[in-house]
């Protein structure tokens, strides 16, 4: 098991990602943030609360997206996935969407997420923010716009992002 981030590094990286978003979106007037269920939501929660301290006046629309019903492996995956809550109480029509997930690997989750997003309206643009980008393992032409850390890994390895709210500590490890 190889540690990639400790708690302090994780915090600094999240702050950097929030500032990078600010650079491109300034006042967040037409921008919304969507966290991917299940584990991208922990990251999007942190990013949104950081943005609130940086932009106390802005009211940033924030939703959560579950892609279970949009998966491309319904018949081939070894187990049936149980859906989690999708909560997007606003239209995405003409909005600039920032999609947030913890780890980008094959790109298939994001592919399903893009499909799901379109059911909530036609966004002006969609950007992707991930904490960990496992490059060289993509199965679809999908690339992130904001990256916490780029990792070279082989398929046998696993990257696990741990969150205090769920796993009792903030840490990123490669197994």
């Amino acid at each position, binding site marked *: 098991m190889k540690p990639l981030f400790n708690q302090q590094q994780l915090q600094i990286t999240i702050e950097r990602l929030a500032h990078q978003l600010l650079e491109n979106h300034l006042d967040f007037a037409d921008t919304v943030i969507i966290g991917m269920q299940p584990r991208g939501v922990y990251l999007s929660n942190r990013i949104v609360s950081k943005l609130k301290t940086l932009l106390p006046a802005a009211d940033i629309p924030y939703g959560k997206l579950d892609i279970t*019903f949009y998966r491309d492996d*319904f018949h081939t995956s070894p187990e049936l996935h149980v859906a989690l*809550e999708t909560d997007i109480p606003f239209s995405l029509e003409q909005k600039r969407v920032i999609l947030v997930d913890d780890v980008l690997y094959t790109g298939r989750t994001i592919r399903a997420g893009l499909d799901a997003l379109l059911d909530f309206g036609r966004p002006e643009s969609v950007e992707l923010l991930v904490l960990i980008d496992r490059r060289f393992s993509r199965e679809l032409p999908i690339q992130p716009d904001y990256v916490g850390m780029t990792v070279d890994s082989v398929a046998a390895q696993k990257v696990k992002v741990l969150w205090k709210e769920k796993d009792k500590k903030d840490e990123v490890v490669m197994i």
Partner: protein
Amino acid sequence: MSLSVKHLLGIKDLTPGDIDLILRTADNFKDVLQRPIKKVPTLRDTTIVNLFYENSTRTRISFELAEKRLSADTINFTASGSSVSKGETLIDTVNNILSMKVDMVVMRHSASGAPHFLARHINASIVNAGDGINEHPTQALLDAFSIREKLGSLKGRRVALFGDIMHSRVALSNIYLLTKMGAEVTVCGPPTLIPKHIEKLGVKVSYDLRKTLEWCEVANVLRIQLERQSKPLFSTLREYALYYGINKALLDSLKKEIVIMHPGPINRGVELNSDVADSGHSIILDQVQNGVAVRMAVLYLLAGKKEE
């Protein structure tokens, strides 16, 4: 997580875990139905046939909508106008349909046990949409979903089933489901419409409408099914309405709130008066709306069931 069964033949075969999984999955589909685009691509490679050997409005439309909202391909079959009138057997009919690469069968039949019989002879998953006087599992699931949505939970709730318990598949499925999920159930109606020994299923029996209404939190009022009664079991509909019909004056005199449910179609003025059916106490149209989400959950979980 997946269901313990390959078919949904009846609530009798389900575990409390199965029921909980179906209801939780239905929560997600109810959310899908509120979106601008009320459709997900999940079952786009699945074909489902709706075999209706008996009349139906709500159930058939509800299943068909559920299938379409899941992007499944659907075929509708009704016994009238088919080769059934030429004498084709049930198994032949179904095998011919399945040979055209159909994956699931939703069936309503007037013979109790027809879907169980079919399940022994074909490979496709079967969903029972009502068989004779046996079970109507998806109705009980949507009733439970509606109670849970209105009152927050099923466990410990006091639910009364009123009317034609003898001929009602909705009653039997509701009894199985509610007792499995820890609700208290009383059946109430004239003695001729309540089967003997029904208390062995874990329910209480009452012949007194008023007392039962005073006891319950939810009143699920069932339809008087004259078409299934081979001999008269009460003198007249007017007499039935007098002793067992629920009206606003009666509910007002109880000084408490009761949730009113009915699986439809309503005999207005017989088991339920219009001043109750159309009132704020009634969640009858919520039941119909929830039916689509619950059926989507059943189809999704059965289609995704992995071979062992």
